[in-house]
């Protein structure tokens, strides 16, 4: 699968064989008076860079800062942080390697890139686990200083790969980053261990130089972050500048250019970088404003959802109440209690948390209370791959409760879309008096993209009206004829005192009922209420390509970028293929079946073992085929291009 993705972008016109030996570059002695570097800049329309090191090496920070500087020069970008579940795995081990991949481009991109063009490996383990992804002829920068006997052994190298032909396919730049960092911060009188902490900043300085950027933004950031720790601030800035200066003054070998990625042409507006979890938190606050409801979040820490809890805990100035509960069940129950009280109850979690909340979600379905449930999916089942991404909670979201218990399920396709889908979830929950499940995933949660910032004035308010004291013949299951939604009576309202609960209620009085006919009708009614939402959501459109033809690629959630790029690429090759993407998964848009049947073939890429594909087959009787990847990693564009070719009808 990976072979198809290999291609050299930085290296057009050369092939790997020609590069052999040509680019191996020995570290130079800075004191030897290297001449200033006057290399020509090579202009590229896109480049993929990956930073890889020990989980304690600060690679996520380095990546985030490079992301920031790329946004500042106006590149489009997409990132993919990939880190281990262990906070500090044993140093030098392959399972402790933390990576951060960023794709910067002068045009609109939608994925963090298939394979890195540039790889920075801070130790042998990072090299071992990442070099296989580097494109042939790609630029490989390694911290030679970390290639000690011990580290080589921990990474499983019998001999030093820097000394033999192992890396001959790449343009290898060997630098003793450790030594250079120690020299750069020598003036600060730090211990060796502490001094070496700055080696990520030295590396960042070098990479910033490589892409023709200055260090100003990062210096400002360091100044703010370590405002009260002067030595830490100044030593990091010194290392950063030294790395940058090294690039300027050192003599780089033939083939190592300064790369320039011109500004992307994005539509006019104000932009910022945003991760999915940030966008989600802000979307919930926006939903609180648009609905005129107090937001009450019940949540329990779980990867990769915790940062939503963190973000909302800092937004109390918007009236947000956050409650870190004793467990997942208490978290959802507190949110349900808040909704009963007339607030917007929200709970955020990942797959294992949804499993624990299932009974309580059923209670909210039975009592017809609004509730927003957010599942930031990760690899499963059980603890699974907590820090990796997957889409394998779709069945759990749609079907995973006792009894006939339908609820609306929606998803976000990009980090920025998390903002709008949080609002959509709250809109549906309050309008239809139902829990709503919003699915995102670890890839969206942590990945960043430039986001055109919306204005609140452009968003449609949906103020909630509670049942009033004067409601005639009030009982808790009085419904709106059109939406079938029950009234929302708020405790504290005189005259509306009532009791609800998990036991089936009589449709005409709201009292407990074990009447067989009533249960049949109430079950049908609850299902119809959710089915009716299909009339309240946009029809399924075509994102790319014609609305009829040989092949449709249909997906949901975070696979959006990879599918879109793959379809574009295949179309450039002359293939007739289209892309549709579902954002409402239950109920689906009304025209879904009709749209599917306009294509001769349908394929469904998913990061699971085949879920949406089974629903489409079951609901619409189309012979859709699954393209499944369950590795904890997002799809590569090339993988989907290859699947498109495999599934084209024979002409």
């Amino acid at each position, binding site marked *: 699968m990976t072979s198809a993705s290999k291609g050299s972008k930085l290296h057009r016109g050369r092939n790997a064989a020609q590069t052999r030996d040509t680019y191996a570059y020995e570290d130079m002695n800075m004191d030897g008076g290297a001449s200033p570097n006057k290399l020509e800049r090579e202009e590229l329309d896109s480049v993929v860079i990956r930073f890889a090191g020990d989980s304690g090496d600060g690679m996520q920070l380095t990546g985030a800062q490079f992301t920031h500087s790329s946004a500042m020069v106006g590149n489009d970008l997409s990132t993919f942080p990939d880190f281990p579940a262990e906070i500090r795995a044993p140093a030098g081990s392959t399972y402790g390697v933390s990576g951060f991949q960023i794709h910067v481009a002068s045009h609109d991109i939608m994925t963090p890139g298939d394979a890195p063009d540039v790889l920075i490996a801070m130790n042998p383990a990072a090299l071992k686990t990442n070099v296989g992804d580097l494109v042939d002829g790609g630029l490989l920068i390694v911290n030679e200083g970390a290639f000690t006997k011990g580290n080589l052994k921990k990474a499983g190298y019998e001999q030093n790969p820097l000394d033999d032909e192992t890396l001959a396919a790449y343009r290898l730049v060997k630098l003793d980053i450790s030594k250079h960092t120690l020299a750069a911060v020598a003036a600060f009188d730090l211990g060796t261990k502490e001094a070496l902490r700055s080696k990520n900043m030295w590396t960042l300085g070098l990479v910033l130089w490589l892409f023709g950027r200055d260090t100003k933004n990062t210096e400002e950031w360091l100044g703010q972050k370590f405002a009260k720790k002067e030595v830490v601030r100044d030593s990091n800035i010194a290392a950063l500048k030294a790395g940058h200066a090294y690039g300027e003054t050192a003599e780089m070998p033939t083939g190592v250019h300064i790369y320039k990625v011109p500004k992307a042409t994005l539509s006019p507006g104000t932009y910022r970088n945003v991760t999915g979890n940030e966008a989600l938190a*802000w979307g919930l606050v926006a939903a609180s404003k648009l609905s005129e409801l107090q937001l009450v979040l019940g949540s329990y820490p779980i990867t990769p959802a915790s940062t939503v809890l963190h973000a909302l805990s800092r*937004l109390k100035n918007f009236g947000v*109440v956050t409650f870190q509960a*004793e467990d997942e069940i208490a978290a959802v129950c507190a*949110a349900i209690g808040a909704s009963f009280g007339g607030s917007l109850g929200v709970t955020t979690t990942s797959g294992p948390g949804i499993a624990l909340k299932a009974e309580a979600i059923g209670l909210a379905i039975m009592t017809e209370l609004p509730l927003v449930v957010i599942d930031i999916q990760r690899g499963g089942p059980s603890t699974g791959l907590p820090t990796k991404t997957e889409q394998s909670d779709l069945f759990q979201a749609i079907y995973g409760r006792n009894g006939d218990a339908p609820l609306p399920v929606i998803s976000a396709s990009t980090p920025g879309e998390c903002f709008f889908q949080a609002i959509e979830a709250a809109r549906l929950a309050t309008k239809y008096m139902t829990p709503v499940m919003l699915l995102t995933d670890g890839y969206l949660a942590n990945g960043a993209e430039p986001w055109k910032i919306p204005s609140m004035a452009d968003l449609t308010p949906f103020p909630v009206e509670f049942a009033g004291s004067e409601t005639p013949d009030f009982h808790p299951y009085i419904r709106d004829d059109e939406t079938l939604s029950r009234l929302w009576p708020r*405790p504290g309202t005189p005259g509306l005192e009532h009791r609800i609960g998990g036991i089936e209620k009589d449709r005409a009085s709201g009292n*407990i009922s074990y009447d067989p006919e009533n249960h049949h009708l109430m079950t049908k009614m609850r299902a119809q209420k959710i089915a009716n939402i299909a009339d309240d959501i946009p029809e399924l459109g075509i994102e790319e390509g014609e609305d009829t033809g040989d092949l449709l690629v249909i997906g949901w959630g975070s696979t959006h970028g990879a599918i879109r790029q793959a379809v574009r690429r295949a179309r450039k090759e002359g293939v007739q293929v289209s892309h549709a993407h579902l954002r409402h998964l239950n109920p689906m848009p009304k025209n879904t079946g009709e749209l599917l049947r306009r294509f001769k073939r349908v394929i469904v890429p998913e990061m699971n073992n085949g879920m949406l594909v089974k629903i489409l087959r079951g609901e619409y009787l189309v012979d859709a085929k699954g393209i499944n990847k369950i590795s904890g990693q997002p799809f590569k564009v090339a993988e989907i291009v290859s699947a498109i070719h495999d599934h084209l009808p024979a002409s």
Partner: protein
Amino acid sequence: MNAPTQKLTRKDFTSDQDIRWCPGCGDYAILATLQRTLPALGVSRENTVFISGIGCSSRFPYYMDTYGFHTIHGRAPAVATGLKLANPELDIWMITGDGDGLSIGGNHMLHVLRRNVDLQIMLFNNRIYGLTKGQYSPTSLVGLRTPSTPMGSIDAPVVPASFALGAGGRFIARTIDTDAKHLGPVFTRAHEYRGASFIEILQNCPVFNDGAWSHVKDKEIADESQLRLEHGQPMRFGENKGLRLNAKTIELEVVTIGEDGVTEEDILVHDESNKSMALLLANLEPPRFPIALGILYCDTDAHPYDQAVHAQVEHAKATSKVDSIDALLRSGHTWTVE
């Protein structure tokens, strides 16, 4: 906050639903006493909410003409906490039992108590699972034969009041279902308390565990087996008996005034604010000791959780420089494309 416009009576708090507890169930007495007590508390129907879990006792909300939510097994503390956070003006009573509150919901009970959420928590302790037809519960005594323990229970029971104190509960009371004169005033004190007030009610299940409390309740022996605590009053019971602290063993001991030189001066005086004493009292059990009834512990210095949560929200509102969502979205680094 919770003032009715006209004087309410027991009838105003009685819903139109037929009560479905078994004849002779202790729950009837508890319901009647609470319905009689509420009017005197000056509360309104619309601001009063009953939240329950699952079990016989948890049907309670359906019989109260107030707001009510019959939730799921064990989770009433969490639902009640969320409701109180959403609207701290509400006056919330939580109804649970020994199985609901100490078995499936034991974790939530621990946390609602340590957080000190402003609720009245009524735990009906009948030492049995009634609704599922008579299995042993976490308060059942060792040796109890039930459908799931045909050879007798081998689980050591939990003492609810002791658990609640250990969890950090600040108001701990114990009372008896059919003793309206004791029950009513305990409800009143619990309602006055700002924080989580925990009331263990010794309740009889006539069908599956009849007489579970007869060794403390029966009229003939009640005087000898019940210690009725009154703040500032000596801990006396029976004809001439009282409790004394044995300073060597740091244990309580039963003494008789007039015997072995014991005088009234030797008898301990109840102090509701003394937690160490409350822990000793909570664990007293017949036949060696009387069971302690009344307010075992009341810490008036503690602050309710819901108030602290909203104080932080108000502080953030008053001090934040980001005053709109538009400003929030534009905080930090942004750039403009022309």
